[in-house]
């Protein structure tokens, strides 16, 4: 774009229709910026945006007629930006067409104005490009859990004790990231392997609204390549740990029974460790482990971190709810994808998402292909932000691409 502009401006009004390709043969290999498709929305997207705008108008009409409703007002506010962008877009499109006609016409009057016309055309194209991008972004449906806090689960994969150590390293990485961001977090459950630094299971709750959106794409298998502490011969091993990201639907604060009440009686079986003897005053057990089984889906959650059984139960219910919500959402997404005729790339689950190579001091994200040579900074959370931003950008681009081939 900008290259083209810089080139055109010093030229005197050309007598013939200027051809950038003729002047600069190399531009054949690049976009000349003249294809209209770049600036105008795909007709289907346009139709969708227009239908959303009519929906917004209906909403504001019902708000004035039927009285105030906070849910409706919120929905309208969400669509407001889209509607105004769309209106501006519609104003620009005829101007663009007119200007384009002018710029190619052979009329002597038009020829005189050509430089100005071209300049204005560039300007309008630039604005249109921005507008279409904004409209597309608004059309990407926001993730239903985007504004929620989240729970991160860490599990070692292949690689034995080394994988368990790496799972703990990963957990520490996110913990230090949260500390840097000054986000409130709590470690829900850790099963440590005694005698080594590894964990067999770890759960981290990040009580910052919107944390789910931030960590959404962290879920998947993280691979590590390094010489493990357990290795005596100095060979580089490859092991892996899995990260699972769940939305945290409960505050986990004031009302501890909130999560429990969201289930119908009989839907969840609660198992506790049965103490010896008659129970009650006869026994002073410290067994506080609780296991929940969600009968319709067969999901089980065990929790034994706290000395209070009541707290373990509350936490277990919180995790169960998060897992069910995630499962439901994943099923919905899978269903949608199936119903589409075209193959759409998935942004939610990939097998191997990232590699941490210690000997090369390198972190590579396999989805966006971004490589960063600052492993230490990544592991202590300082430069994790860069990585997360890149992944988010990539995900947004993917979504935009999907938007066009969706229908």
């Amino acid at each position, binding site marked *: 774009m900008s290259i083209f502009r810089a080139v055109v401006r010093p030229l005197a009004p050309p007598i013939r229709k200027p051809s950038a390709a003729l002047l600069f043969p190399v531009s054949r290999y690049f976009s000349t910026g003249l294809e209209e498709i770049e600036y105008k929305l795909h007709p289907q997207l346009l139709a969708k945006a227009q239908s959303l705008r009519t929906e917004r108008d209906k909403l504001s009409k019902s708000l004035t007629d039927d009285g105030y409703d906070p849910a409706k007002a919120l929905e309208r506010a969400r669509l407001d930006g889209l509607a105004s962008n769309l209106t501006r877009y519609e104003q620009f499109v005829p101007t663009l067409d007119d200007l384009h006609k002018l710029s190619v016409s052979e009329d002597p009057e038009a020829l005189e104005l050509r430089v100005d016309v071209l300049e204005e055309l560039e300007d309008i194209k630039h604005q249109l490009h921005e507008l279409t991008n904004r409209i597309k972004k608004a059309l990407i449906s926001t993730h239903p859990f985007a504004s929620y806090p989240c729970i991160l689960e860490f599990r070692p994969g292949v690689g034995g004790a080394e994988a368990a150590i790496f799972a703990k390293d990963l957990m520490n990485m996110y913990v230090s990231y949260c500390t840097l961001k000054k986000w409130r977090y709590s470690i829900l459950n850790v099963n440590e392997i005694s005698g080594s630094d590894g964990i067999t299971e770890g759960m981290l709750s990040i009580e910052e609204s919107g944390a789910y959106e931030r960590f959404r794409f962290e879920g998947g298998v993280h691979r590590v390549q390094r010489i493990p502490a357990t290795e005596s011969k100095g060979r580089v091993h490859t092991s892996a740990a899995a990260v699972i990201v769940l939305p945290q639907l409960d505050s986990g604060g004031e009302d501890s029974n909130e999560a429990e009440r969201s289930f119908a009686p009989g839907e969840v079986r609660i198992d506790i460790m049965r103490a*010896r003897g008659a129970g009650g005053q006869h026994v002073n057990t410290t067994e506080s482990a609780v296991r929940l089984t969600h009968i319709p889906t067969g999901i089980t959650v065990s929790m034994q971190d706290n*000395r209070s059984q009541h707290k373990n139960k509350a936490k277990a219910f919180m995790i169960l709810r998060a897992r069910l919500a995630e499962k439901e959402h994943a099923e919905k997404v899978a269903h949608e994808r199936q119903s589409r005729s075209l193959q759409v790339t998935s942004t939610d689950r990939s097998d191997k998402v990232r590699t941490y190579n210690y000997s090369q001091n390198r972190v590579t994200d396999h989805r966006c292909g971004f490589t960063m040579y600052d492993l230490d900074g990544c592991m202590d959370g300082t430069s994790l932000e860069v990585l997360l931003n890149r992944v988010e950008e990539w995900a947004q681009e993917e979504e935009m691409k999907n938007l066009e081939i969706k229908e």
Partner: protein
Amino acid sequence: MRLPPTTVTRAWRESSNLAQLLPEVRTIAGARTELRWIIEYVEERLTDQAGKGMKVSDSDFQNKVSRLCYLRGQKGVPLQYLLGSQPFGDSLDIKCRRGVLIPRWETEEWGIKIAQGIRRNHPFFAAAKPSDVDKSTEQADTYTNISESESQTFKVLDLCTGTGCLALLFAEQLRAPMAKSVYVEGVDRSLAAIYLARLNRATNARAFEKYGTSVVFTAADIFCYDIASYQFDIIIVNPPYVSEEHYYSPRYTTRSVRRFEPKQALLGGLEFYRRILQLAREGAVPAVVCEIADREQLRAIVDECVDDGWTTGGMRDSAGAVRTIIAWRKEFSGWSWMKQLIDV
């Protein structure tokens, strides 16, 4: 039952502290969890000490941990006495000391169930209608008068309170609506228990102070306690209910309980339930909830201690044992919801 030698060797291979814990804790998984709690406790204590400027070395840490593991596993001292506390309810931290019964998870469980039931179903806790609020703000004089009158305070009586855990649990769970308040009284015969309960009230005041709830602990024997002048809404009790026969039988009562917990908080029987129901009659208390040992005791209480006018039933704990007796009187409104808790 003897511990299998393989378990013992496995524990030794992992760590000597773990092996120390085994005789009392019995399973490796359980011992691991307890060891973690012990380590966390010692770490916390030592960081506290270091913060106060005392010298702390690594051997201090090792010595403390192994000492606690020895006491816990070999001597059978309850972990709650060693660590000095037990988390209870949503945010309470109940201090535990020798001579006072350790709060049990069963008590916590039924206490929360009952308290939540009251909060959701009892008319006292129904949200005040906007019109009521308006009135009370407009007429400031009548407002103070109302809050002084009887109906504006929900009163809970906790007998045999021990550490004060049940009384504090109700204080934490029952949050009075606007212009109303909750009053909880805990009664125990043992002075040691009353002192500990007051300490617990002081350390946990944060949990209930903001709702205007007051908690009072009184030293009194329930057999001489005079209830007449108070208008309590509910009596909650965890009385001593272990029979002599069960107390001395290792099948029912574990060694650690017999050795380390106060006998007077454990040994008891029907005389307590008879007295509790008598008190409820004298004080015109509409509802009573007591912890009990088993189904047989429930039957005996219903047969011998309950008279006409009470509706009674039992409630199970999550381990499946019949753990509480719930009784309420028909002539008082606001308590019939309790029948949905009954499952025996």
